[in-house]
């Protein structure tokens, strides 16, 4: 029975930890996206829609 319990514990732990990691990654990226959007919105409000000539 110890092999069975070990199998369940290991498999479920791997899946659980991977799920937690996914949620953590998503939350981290969501915050980053919100920050970028807020920053770009603020710049647009200040008139950043004009693109000055730039060099290639």
């Amino acid at each position, binding site marked *: *029975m110890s*092999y*069975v*319990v*070990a*199998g*369940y514990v*290991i*498999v*479920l732990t*791997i*899946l659980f930890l*991977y*799920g937690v990691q*996914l*949620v953590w*990654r*998503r939350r*981290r*990226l*969501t*915050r*980053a*996206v919100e*920050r*970028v*959007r807020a*920053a*770009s*919105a*603020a*710049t*647009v409000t*200040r*008139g*950043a*829609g*004009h*693109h*000055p*000539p*730039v*060099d*290639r």
Partner: protein
Amino acid sequence: MSTNQSVSPIRPSTEAKGPPFPSPRARRVERTIGIAAAVGTACTVWLGLWVTPPDATKGNTVPGDLVRLVYIHPGVAWVALYLAFGLAAVSSLLYLWPRTRSLFWDRLAAAAVEVGVIFNICTLISGSIWGRPTWGVWWAWDARLTSTAVLLVLFLGYMALRRVPAEPEVRAKRSAFVALFASVDIPIVHFSVLWWNTLHQGATVLNPNLSPTIHGSMAWTLLLGFVALTLVFVWMLLVRYRIGVMEDWLGSGEMDMALTERRAEGVDPDGSADRAAGGRAPGVGASLAPPSAPAVPAGAALLSDAPTPTGPGAPGGPGAEGVAGAEGAAGDGVGMLPEGAR
């Protein structure tokens, strides 16, 4: 050098392109699937460990309780081999097919492979735990085991390939070819127990006669395990796909910033813009610089798609690593620009 060429605003604003967030309905569906997956898995564990009886045909040399591993081992193998890697193969094929070519399929394949690798690892571990008391060894170079391990290595290679800096289309194309190549191993894994004499038992449910040799509470628990683990896979796939969308979205923003930064250097050879911006745009904070400071508004980088990048900071060019590695850079706004874009 010409200085009268503007950045073409292919993507005029982030709002026009649409935020990379799911709709409230999609979030509800995702949450529902997640809860159902958790409940289903908990029920499988409860039925598998406490309700179902031990195997009556074993008991002399092998403990009858070992059959309880069957409620999760085929389930994770089903998800890894058939759902995840099968989906990756189909998605890659659809990406390569000119009529259906879209980065959606590429992201879906990438998400499916990552989740599939996790399930494949679970398959090998649970199989090894089954093998130790049954066969007397943790690992045997058996056809089924070896082909499954080869499949894992192939898709680990796929994941490694995706981390090589490249244009999204180039990365998608070569990843799709590798996924299709790796998928050749899926039928080999499936039929290995028929083609060769193996330690691994033959198919119990999906056998060639299509007559399951399992019944009663064991069959229902096994079925529940398949459903629960499939729901776990679907939930993980949805979340991982969303992560891929956000990574790409942030990655393109970083690329814009890096290119604009380089162009600003070219426009302003005496470096006044660079000095005004503090010498280096500090990640997302570049957009937060005072409006009067930079020669090129840093926010413009987030609002426009630059032409084909060729200079430093471009994929494949010097400093491209920081741009392509969207995940690490995008998280907290630190290191959003590659070294080459200073």
